[in-house]
Each structure stands twice: as C-alpha cells, then as structure tokens.
C-alpha cells in the first residue's frame, strides 16, 4: 500500500470520530492539524481545539477515539495523538498514550470514568439527528400520526431524495449506536419508548432544543478555531 493510500486511510478513520457536543467529525470541524505516517508504520496525529479551555473530558474522549480508530487500521503499528495548546494537554496526551482510563489520567479529580457522559451525548446526537429527519419528513407532507406510527422497515424502504437519504442514514446510524433495535417503530424516544401523536409537538420542541445547542456549539467552535488559527499563523 503506498503512502498516499495509507494517509488517506488515516484521514478516513479520523473522519469517523465525532466531537460529542457538536456531533460532527473532528476532521470536518478542522480540529486535526496533521496526520503523519512515520517510519515503521507509526502514525502521529496532532489536533487543536477552538480554545485553550475546552472541557478536558471531551478532549480526552476525542483523543482516545482518534487513537482507537487509527489503531484499527491493520497496517498501523503505533499511534501517537497529541493535543496542542490546551491547559490540560500534558495530562491528556500522557493518558491517551498510556491508554489510561480518564480517572487515572486525572488522579484525584474524579472517581468515575467517562462512560456516563459518553452515553448522554450519544443520546443527544440521536435526538438531534432525529429532529432533522422528522422536520424533513414534515416538510415533505408527512404528518405526526404517520411519523409516530411508521416502522423502521417502512422508513428504510421509503423513497427519498438525496437530502432525505442523508438525514435518514445519519439517524439510523445513531439509532443503532443507541441500541434502539432493528425492528419496531422508526421514531422512539432515546430510551426506545414509542411517541404518541398527542404529545408529538412537545416532544419535537424538546429535541429541537438539543439540536439548537449543538448548532450553537458548532458555530462558536468554528468561529473561534478560525480566529485562533489565524492568530497563530500570523
């Protein structure tokens, strides 16, 4: 496999890692500043977040997810992930290199790992993607009664235009990660409970709020990162 192909594979692997808050990939957010293949099939990844103050727990999650995603490539021997210009960079980089659990990487700061917060944000991603798909379906003539009753199977076989297919793929992927099952209603709450059409508007308002927060983060983070990178390069 030539170097370009391997580099391409690394970037694709990094593209599967998302910022849990924004629910977008670390590559499309431009967090990853370099991915280099070094002699001996060692990979070195550097990334920078929008601020020096970004929450260390999310930084740690992203760094370990990047390490794991790239490690899965069969030819990769070793992965180094380095977070740049961050107040906790040393602890995070060391913890990720040693494959430490978060609580060991930050001794004395917490007695819990990050599984609960990871689950919480997987749930938020589910709701955000669901809201986008529901709004798309509503705009294309479906009503709440249909949406609350449609099965996953029917949704999958529904003819949709390109944007609808994109939103459906995103939603279904997230639905699977939240273990909502491969059968039954297409649209449920994140715990798998069915939606009822009388409470539909209230539910939609709630998940819209989740999407709105992610959008705020996306806007602020992109803007700050662009300004930060411009300042660093000048």
């Amino acid at each position, binding site marked *: 496999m030539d170097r370009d192909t391997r580099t391409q594979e690394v970037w694709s692997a990094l593209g599967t890692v998302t910022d849990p*808050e924004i629910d977008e990939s670390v590559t499309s957010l431009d967090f990853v500043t370099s991915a280099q293949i070094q002699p001996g099939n060692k990979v070195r990844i550097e990334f920078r977040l*929008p*601020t*020096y*103050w*970004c*929450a*260390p*727990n*999310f930084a740690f999650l992203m760094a370990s997810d990047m390490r794991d995603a790239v490690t899965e490539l069969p030819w990769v021997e070793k992965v180094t992930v380095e977070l740049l*210009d961050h*107040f906790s960079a040393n602890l995070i980089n060391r913890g990720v290199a040693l494959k430490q659990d*978060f*609580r060991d990487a*930050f001794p004395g*700061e*917490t007695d*819990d*790992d*990050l599984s*609960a*917060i990871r689950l*919480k944000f997987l749930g938020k991603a589910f709701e955000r993607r669901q809201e986008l798909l529901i709004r798309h379906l509503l705009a294309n003539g479906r009503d709440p009664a249909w949406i609350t009753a449609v099965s996953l199977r029917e949704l999958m076989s529904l003819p949709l235009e390109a944007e609808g297919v994109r939103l459906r793929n995103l939603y279904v992927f997230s639905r699977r990660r939240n273990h909502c099952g491969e059968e039954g209603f297409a649209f449920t709450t994140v715990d798998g409970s069915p939606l009822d059409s009388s409470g539909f508007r209230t539910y939609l308002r*709630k998940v819209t*709020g*989740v999407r*709105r*927060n*992610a*959008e*705020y*983060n996306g*806007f*602020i983070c992109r*803007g*700050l990162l*662009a*300004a*930060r990178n*411009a*300042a660093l390069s000048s």
Partner: protein
Amino acid sequence: MFTTKSGEKIFVIDGHTHLWDGSPANQRNIHGKQFIDCFYDYHHLGPDSYIWPKEKFERYTEEDYVKDVFEEGYADVAIFNPQYLGDFYHDGFSNLKRNEAFRQQHPDRIIANGFWDPRNGENGLEVFENDAKAYNWKGVKLYTAEWHGDSKGWKLTDPWAYRYFEKCQELGIKNIHVHKGPTIRPLNKDAFDVEDVDDAATTFTDLNFIVEHVGLPRLEDFCYIAAQEPNVYAGLAVVTALIHRRPHYFGEILGELLFWLGPDRILYGSDYGIWSPKWIVEEFMNFELPDDVAAETGKSLTLEVRRKIMGENAARLYDIDIADRRKKLGLSLPAKAEATAAMV
C-alpha cells in the same frame, strides 16, 4: 438612548460590560495570556469593520469606554459585571478600584457590581461585606469557572456559596449575575450544567438570578428552570453577538426565551469590550423574529417588548426610575449619540 425610525425613544441599559486589563504586563502566567487571547477570538465573531487591534483589546481606556458604550453604543446606563481572575492576572482582570473610580466619574450612568468567591471562606465573607458597604453594591457577578489554587471551579450549591448568598440577603444585594461558562469540575460531568441555578434560585427566592449567556449551550435546561423559577432572568450577553452572523439562529433563541420566560425577564447586554454595543443595538432594533419562529412561538418583537429588553427590565431590578433618570441625564446626553441615533 436609541431613537427608532418613527421617533420613539428607547432607554437603554447595557446589562453586561467590562473594563479589563488583559495586557502582557498584567498577565501572571500562560493562562492569563490564553484567557485574553480566547476573548479576542470571540471578538472576531462580530463584524469585520469593528475589529480592534490586539493592543487596544488587551487594555482599552476609560475614554474608549465612554465613546463606545455611551456616545456610540446608545447606553444611558451600563453595568459592570467584573471578573477577578486573580490566579491569572496580577491586579485582577477587572479591578474593583478602577471600576469604582470610573463609576464616581459617571455616577448616574455606571452601576459597578462586585463579586465573591465561596472558596475564600470566612475571611472572604468579611472582605465581601466591607467592599459591599464601601462600594454600595446592588449586585454581584459570580464566575463559577474561576481557578483558585488547585480548584478549577465551584458550584452555586457549595455550602459556602449559601453562606455568601445569605450575606447578600443581609446586605440587600439582590441581583446575582451568574456566568455559566464551562466549569471544569467535576471533570467527568457536563461542564455546562445549569442545575445549580435551580437549587440556588429555589432556596433564595428573594434574590434575582440573572443567568448570563442564557446557559448556552444548555438553552433547553435553562428555559426549563427559568419557566419554573420566577426569580431567574436571561442575560443576553454573547447571545446578542450572534445577531450579526447568525440572525435566524439568534431569532430562534430569542423566540424560545420569549416563549418560556416572557418579555419581563430578558436583559440586554453587549459584553463590551468583547464587542462594541453600537452594531449590536442597531441590528437588534432592526431585527424581527423570523416567520417560522414567530409562527411556532406565537411571539413578536413589539416596541413594548423591545423597551423591556433594552432597559425597563434592568431598571426594575436596579431600582432605576427611567423618567427621573432621563431628566437627570437629559442635559448631559452627548449630542453625538442623539445625532447618530437620529440617523438610524
């Protein structure tokens, strides 16, 4: 004072401003540098034509403030919500003495709030009481993300915070501006959690909790809390800055706030010097809720609603009689502000 196209005069209270010194000379360490650098990145979310040189941004003067906030920024009254950040800056990022000296020059225009930090314990309580009496504070700004030795933040529900809230009650300081920025601790939890506001507001019903930046990015949690607690207010600082690059999104947030809190509990703030109030006020006064937001929330930005957000709500919290204050300021109102306002 902002004058609408139809000639209506709007009394403006800028609920969130600063005088700071983030310059290298005042920076204690790398964190001080990174802090002001991060603010400067936020500064770039505003219009390009309002970008300041870095040196001015790091330390602007009292004269800059008068020009930007009062002469060009339409504010009749403005509130200081200081951040101390003693671990990052030698003399503090905001300096209470400097704020007070400025307030004494503009006693009818400036409200200088104080601050406290529960981690200062018994000693701090005494210092706070002395300062509050000396400066006649009507409000405080609480910055829960502030570093303090080994601690990287605190919560409004910490037992010592309750002691300070009780002291606020005793001293008649009823306006508690809470910055809900990313707090670091506990590290495994959601850094933007706003639940502690709920507990504090329920316990201290006679204090007003103005949540700056409306809890973003936890807007829905904030709205849920604010809908239940009548003493919780939405501070629009930072949110207003979205109006320039993301007007529809700004409309969505404002629509939610109007829906859940109503027009009486929303306070305008520019967060000067991060952004210049001039463009924020002008864009806000020309802003209408997008059709889809208006349809979904059933709300609209009437003149009455704008008056409340831009000044009447803050006036109520700070016991300002607008008619009376107008008279006091009338003669000294800079001619330039009137002229600029008339052109809009």
